């Protein structure tokens, strides 16, 4: 038995092969066994792309470790390939010397052809550098289940648990968590519970008796901060952050949304929790999604809308309206590959400028971004807090990578944090109240229908100072544009100062934002270990930026901005602070690898 500090495993197969489930089981079991984990589900946009083709390959990569894990890993050391297409799609990314488990039953001439091979894949691909384990996973699964009163198709469907069982043996995983899951899931259909349980155990036993697995591995418990942990993905954390924000503000939560990949899971999750006073409204389109939310906000709810780039494009006009109304609202953009329909199931950070500026007129908006799956809880709460305390719409940026990726989350103590949001109810009596009278931070108050004497009308036409009545006065218009901008900038007094990882001065400052934190953090950590004078500034508050950001730049010789777009944050920073930052950019629909960042930063260091 060999001890490993960390290992990356990729489960890969046809869309219908159950690879997402298999990967999730492996991750959850590892987390329960005390490993740090990070996951990366990678699946096609089509629900069932043509079976057996490379386009239909669905993968789930998990990185487990005995020390800090922040990304799903650059290169898998183990690949489970359930068919030729899975081998073709993934082989080039597998680490040399790694292990490849193949389901030989699927390596037929027909399947090879579908995957685009002109002959036997095992001959065509050079597999000399890998340990190849050939297993007849499908037939062995059906053989193990032969006595069960199930049709062959259903038996064959259990093959993913057989494959999972093999990996459980290889990595000394406990079966208990998965057995419990199977029983919970199939409790009402005992025959399916038995079939999957048997398949899992059969796979494990097969691996144990198979001499082809020369070595098994153990990944010891990670040295993680004490506390109670659970595994969480970004979309669930986002949903929960909003529920907590509504509780902290003493308001009901309203979500107006239209289904879109990869944001729909927030709608699904919130729809489960109506007992928290949550109302979810699946609207007829993206525009109605945000418009119902603005209506709910006017009526006094903590309101939000969730979407991704194409949907945000449709919401633009209504976002501007919420801005000029000065009503609290959160707009979540789970970014995906663009432009247009782009790469729906892939990740990217290319909607930054869209969210900052993608509206007509001077339309400033608070923009924040979550850095990792669990941080989505924090930032959903923060987005809500800023919207309510500053009476303005706030954009929360996450992305497909952290939305679907999971990690262990040390559960917060809600009696100590995430428990206070102040709501700007009018303090003045109705006779002296004006809808657009402001406090020192330019924040107006929120009177809602039902409040006697505060009847007022809001509109999208320009408003007169204080009263909010329609005004076409040129100077008033300019004043109002300045006030709305100032209001957004004053929110910088209500956000934490920017943190810096590393020394306060040095040769290179790496800037990143949003969902790339895991990779930039690990890359900078590695370079610092090697003695380089590199620090990391990872931004979560984008507009306004923390007050100390400008002063941080001054102490570094060079600045490089790493982001998954063609340089949108770099453009903002260079425009705002004139720092001549360079960029490291990638738009492949894929997250950063640590190794590519290390190389890029080294090059910049010279």
């Amino acid at each position, binding site marked *: 038995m060999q001890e490993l500090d960390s290992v990356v495993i990729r489960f890969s197969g046809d869309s219908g092969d159950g690879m997402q489930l298999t990967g999730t089981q492996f991750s959850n079991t590892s987390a329960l066994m005390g490993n740090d984990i990070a996951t990366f589900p990678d699946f096609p946009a089509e629900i069932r792309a043509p079976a057996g083709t490379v386009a239909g390959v669905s993968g789930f990569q998990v990185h487990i470790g005995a020390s800090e894990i922040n990304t799903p890993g650059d290169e898998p050391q183990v690949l489970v390939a359930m068919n030729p297409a899975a081998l073709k799609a993934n082989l080039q990314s597998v680490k040399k010397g790694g292990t490849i488990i193949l389901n030989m039953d699927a390596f037929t001439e027909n399947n090879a052809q579908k995957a685009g091979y002109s002959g036997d894949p095992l001959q065509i691909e050079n597999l000399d550098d890998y340990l190849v384990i050939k297993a007849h996973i499908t037939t062995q699964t059906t053989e193990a289940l032969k006595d069960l009163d199930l049709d062959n198709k259903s038996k064959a469907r259990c093959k993913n648990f057989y494959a999972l069982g093999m990996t459980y043996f290889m990595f000394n995983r406990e079966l208990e968590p998965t057995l419990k899951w199977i029983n919970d899931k199939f409790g009402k259909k005992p025959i399916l519970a038995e079939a999957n349980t048997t398949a899992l155990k059969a796979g494990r036993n097969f691996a144990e008796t198979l001499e082809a697995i020369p070595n098994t591995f153990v990944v010891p418990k990670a040295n993680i901060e004490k506390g109670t942990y659970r595994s969480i993905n970004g979309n669930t954390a986002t949903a929960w952050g909003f529920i907590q924000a509504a509780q902290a503000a003493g308001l009901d939560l309203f979500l107006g949304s239209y289904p879109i990949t990869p944001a729909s899971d927030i709608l699904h999750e919130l729809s489960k929790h109506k007992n928290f006073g949550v*109302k979810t409204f699946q609207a007829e389109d993206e525009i109605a999604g945000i418009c119902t939310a603005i209506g709910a906000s006017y009526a006094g709810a903590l309101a939000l809308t969730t979407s991704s780039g194409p949907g945000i494009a449709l919401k633009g006009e209504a976002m501007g309206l919420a801005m000029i109304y000065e009503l609290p609202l959160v707009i979540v953009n789970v970014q995906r590959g663009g432009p247009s329909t782009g790469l729906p199931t892939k990740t990217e950070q290319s909607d930054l400028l869209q969210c900052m500026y993608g509206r007509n007129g001077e339309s400033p908006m608070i923009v924040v971004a979550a850095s990792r799956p669990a941080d989505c809880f924090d930032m959903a709460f923060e987005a809500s807090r800023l919207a309510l305390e500053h009476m303005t719409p706030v954009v929360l940026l996450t992305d497909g990578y952290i939305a679907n990726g999971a990690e262990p989350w040390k559960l917060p103590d809600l009696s100590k944090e995430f428990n206070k949001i102040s709501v700007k109810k009018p303090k003045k009596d109705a006779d002296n109240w004006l809808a657009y009278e402001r406090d020192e931070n330019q924040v107006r108050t929120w009177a809602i229908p039902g409040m006697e004497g505060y009847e007022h009308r809001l509109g999208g036409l320009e408003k007169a100072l204080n009263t909010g009545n329609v005004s076409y006065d040129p100077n008033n218009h300019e004043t109002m544009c300045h006030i709305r901008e100032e209001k957004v900038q004053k929110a910088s007094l209500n956000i934490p100062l920017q943190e810096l990882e590393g020394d306060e001065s040095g040769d290179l400052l790496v800037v990143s934002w949003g969902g790339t934190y895991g990779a930039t953090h690990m890359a900078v950590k590695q370079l610092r270990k090697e003695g380089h004078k590199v620090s990391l500034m990872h931004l979560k508050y984008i507009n306004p930026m923390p007050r100390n950001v400008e002063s941080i730049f001054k102490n570094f010789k060079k600045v490089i901005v790493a982001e998954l777009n063609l340089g949108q944050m770099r453009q903002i920073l260079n425009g705002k602070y004139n720092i001549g930052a360079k960029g490291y950019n990638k738009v492949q629909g894929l997250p950063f690898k640590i190794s590519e960042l290390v190389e890029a930063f080294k090059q910049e260091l010279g």
Partner: protein
Amino acid sequence: MTENPTYKKKDFVSDQEVRWCPGCGDYAILSSVQMALTKIGKKKEDIVFVSGIGCSSRFPYYVNTYGLHTIHGRAPAFASGIKSTNPNLSVWIITGDGDGLSIGGNHLIHILRRNIDCNIILFNNEIYGLTKGQYSPTSQRGLVTKSTPYGSIDRSFTPAKLAIGAGATFFARTMDTDPKHMQDISLAAEEHRGTSLIEAYQNCVIFNDGVHDLYTNRKTRDDHCVFIEHGQPMIFGKDKNKGIKLTGSKLEVVTIGENGVTEADLLVHDQTDERLAFMLAGMKGPELPVAVGILYKVDDVHYDEQICAQVEEVKAKKGAGDMNKLLHSGDTWEI
């Protein structure tokens, strides 16, 4: 419910100057609605007017209640959010033929489908006013406008057919020249639980003057409109001697006393009959009068009640939400 104060019409007049063109049909509708508000038994602070974009959409600024002037075509969506959040509110949507049937057509059919308890007044003048005179989805084919100098080639919508097709539970037609009728219909709409759609024939004096004249002019109105009432025979005409008769599957105009026709031969209005409503919706001149009044009204579940009821049901079943419990649900582990 607490006791409601008695209001006069002036209580619903805001301090904003009304800026419609002199002679515009909107003035009469505004006045009728303000009168109706004194009688609906709702407190001022519990009333919200919501509009989109267009001449009629300035309406909320002029009514001294809560109000939202929103973006083009989307008023039903905003109203849906308001009503879902606070079902106690009386929510009124003001829209026009361009706002409601063109850019906002999608939201209109979906609020009707969901049957959210709001009152929609659709000002139909068969023209775009605020953008200065282009044809609308209700303009008749051939209409010459700024954007159709050789005549419109579009076929037009009949709002009543669209509404009934979309599953509306209340559709009524009224007109700017009959304030009493307008007021009665508004009250009936408020009383109806579910989405009430009122189509108001409204005259645009600038861009489409007299478009509804045949039906709305006091001199010709009685011979070209049949004012229908539930349970009553369909009689119309200056001399109250014409009626609507169903022959086979077709509606026809007959004269009482001619060819042996008596009142008993006339069609009696049943506002719950969807097929009849659809036939009435399609009646138009010159052969047939247009139907004015409540064409269709049925009771059905309404969304705003359901969305709140579901929250209560889940609370009763699972207990009020406890965030700590949620965080610790499923698999957790101690380090």
